[in-house]
């Protein structure tokens, strides 16, 4: 659902089709305030945005990727709060993003290769907007995060479909390459997925967490076969089940209404995931692609905090400062371990590297643990 609380102008009503990756954004005929879509020409090195000043209201971007890398397009408010995004814009296609923007200054970003801060540009939105009430600010936060979840689940479905296809066609190398990428979208919204307790272990359960009589299925089952024996000839049914489980959880996640407290606790839980499972290399013990998950958990935590940012800035500005510096330290520390478009394997990191990462996560997780009480005030 679109938030219209931001804007003083008469709302155009709830809009369908939020620029979801995966289904091709529908043009539902709503007219944006700027009078037509803004063309975004994305390549591997550039991000040309057709217009950098627009009027407040619904803004439509038409993103064309003429590069060789998969890209993403974001509109950020201060503190990298995601106002809207399209994921998984593969080379050669166009995607639309519809986003409701109140007056203010924003940044646009293309992320070729889906990594880093992206290629940024300024965007000014003019017009009038009423100040938010406290409750409206919280509602805006959950709406904003809901949009994030929807963008992630769309990409999760796309990439899981590709991964499953690779498994079923016996393409071991292709499946191995897709494994950490598909998981990225899962890991970013892991706390949401965990709301659905029965599906989570089927999709993401490690062998030792299964109860007696449960079959070992999901990502980690396929990971084990891909990396230990390399024999995926009998994994067709496992792959099919993974895809149907993911479809089910995506539908549930998109329908779930989260509370601001869910966001705050989710931000903390994502860092707990890192601290307990990714630092130790337990998560991806066969592929050792834990750093993909690590980064995705941090990004998911950042997205939840970004959604709450206006509320936190109002109520606890010092906390926001410490969160910003905590995230920056984690990004810098983790950034040392990039490898091409991805990450080093967990097994390539020394004990000292892991301790540095652990320290950075602990330093961020302590202030993050204080967010819930601020939100609950």
């Amino acid at each position, binding site marked *: 659902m679109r938030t219209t609380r931001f804007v003083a102008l008469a709302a155009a009503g709830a809009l369908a089709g939020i620029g979801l990756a995966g289904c091709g954004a529908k043009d539902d005929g709503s007219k944006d305030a700027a009078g037509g879509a803004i063309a975004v020409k994305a390549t591997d090195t550039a991000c040309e945005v057709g217009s950098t000043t627009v009027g407040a209201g619904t803004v439509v971007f038409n993103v064309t990727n003429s590069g060789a890398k998969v890209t993403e397009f974001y509109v950020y408010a201060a503190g990298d709060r995601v106002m809207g995004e399209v994921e998984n814009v593969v080379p050669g296609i166009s995607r639309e993003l519809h986003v409701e923007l109140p007056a203010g200054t924003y940044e646009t970003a293309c992320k070729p290769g889906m990594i880093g801060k992206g290629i940024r540009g300024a965007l000014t939105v003019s017009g009038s907007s009423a100040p938010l009430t406290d409750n409206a600010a919280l509602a805006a936060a959950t709406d904003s995060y809901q949009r994030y979840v929807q963008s992630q689940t769309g990409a999760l479905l796309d990439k899981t479909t590709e991964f499953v296809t690779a498994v079923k066609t016996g393409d071991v190398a292709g499946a191995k390459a897709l494994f950490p990428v598909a998981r990225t979208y899962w890991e970013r919204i892991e706390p949401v997925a965990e709301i659905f307790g029965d599906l989570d272990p089927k999709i993401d359960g490690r062998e030792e967490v299964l109860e007696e009589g449960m079959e070992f299925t999901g990502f980690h089952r396929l990971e084990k076969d891909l990396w230990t024996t390399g024999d995926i000839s009998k994994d067709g049914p496992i792959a099919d089940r993974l895809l149907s489980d993911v479809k089910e959880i995506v539908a549930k996640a998109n329908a779930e209404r989260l509370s601001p*407290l869910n966001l705050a606790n989710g931000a903390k839980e994502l860092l707990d995931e890192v601290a307990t499972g990714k630092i130790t290399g337990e998560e991806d013990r066969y592929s050792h692609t834990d750093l993909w998950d690590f980064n995705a958990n941090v990004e998911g935590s950042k997205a939840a905090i970004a959604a709450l940012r206006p509320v936190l800035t109002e109520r606890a500005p*010092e906390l926001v400062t*410490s969160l910003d510096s905590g995230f920056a330290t984690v990004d810098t520390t983790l950034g040392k371990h990039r490898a091409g478009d991805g990450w080093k394997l967990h097994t390539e990191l020394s004990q000292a590297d892991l301790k540095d990462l652990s*320290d950075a996560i*602990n*330093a961020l997780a302590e202030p993050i643990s*204080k967010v819930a009480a601020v939100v*609950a005030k």
Partner: protein
Amino acid sequence: MTEKRLSRRRAIGIAGAGVAGVGIAGVTGAALRGAFDPPLSAGASPSDAVDFHGEHQAGITTEVPDRLHFVAFDVVTKDRARLVELLQDWTAAAARMTAGQDAGVIGAVNGSPEAPPDDTGEALSLPPSGLTLTVGFGPSLFRDADGRDRFGLAERRPAALADLPRFPGEALRPEISGGDLCVQACANDPQVAVHAIRNLARIGMGVVSVRWSQLGFGRTSSTSRDQATPRNLFGFKDGTANLKIEDTALLREQLWVQPGDGPEWMTGGAYLVTRKIRMIIETWDRTSLGEQEELVGRAKGSGAPLGQHDEFDPINLKATGPDDRPRITETAHVRLAHPDQNNGARLLRRGYNYVDGSDGLGRLDAGLFFIAYQRDPRRQFVPIQTQLARHDGLNEYLRHVSSGLFACPPGVREPGDFWGRALFD
């Protein structure tokens, strides 16, 4: 903000109505530094509080309690102001915890249900238990391994805090040695000591990171004539000839940094050396009683020096046996460590036994966590340990696996003062 400071004994049983607006306490650190309720004066009971404030830090000459949790930290921030702020926060939390209060101003059970408590809670309802917390600064705080002056302190590094030389036979593990800062927690209850270190580590997240830590039990030294001499895991009384709190003149000469020693910020402080000394217990236990006593230089039962009758009889290095050989051999531990053999150098020892489970080879991973305070390690620990490392017959049964060196500043004299303030002024 309401600041309720409750002793842990009274915290239980108070209806924990959430204090309004406490969720962000601790974010600034200022909230951590509430006012301070002076504890009961240190009494004779093991459960009493030891006064945190004073000319010297508590935990040096304080009667040694039975339990230790020692921790060394690396400083992970580059920001001097954050380090100073941490020392202020730590001092406030230490003053509270040694008085038997919660680590934070809100407490373990009085805060918002949505917020993590600012005290971890495992010491709720436990008495102060003689808890002392003692801080020290390692050489690497002044200059790191690459020689960088990290916090503008390099000029203030004491000459006496010179890196220890390599001693023959040591097998130091770097990951459990050194550290930029240390905190020694001693208490009569292990839960109280662990609680203190755990909460200090938590307060320090993002500024410091635990490098290594050690639990100890069964003090191996006495620091007062009131205390019976305990035994180490070799089964021998240890610390008979230790410096004692009653030896006021000796303490000035051997323990406390005196005015003029330099640097001035250390006056009233002392230098700490820690050594984790693994004992090869199983082979020791197969050693005959006579050989054990000869190696140590004391009788195992009474603790008396060989050739004497009582534990506190003076060691007579010249006494000979019927065969005209010295009763205390050339390689006996007490001879090599004796002040007469080391230009009069003494140490204030307050070490602990440790058992870190077993080593997978069917042997106990056990030994002595040696702790010694002194006025100048270059004239005290270093020459004594050089002698021992070269000649001590006990070396066959010992492995030095960890080493630490720290400058422990003088005491926190009044509320508002903080650990190491003079160093950062």
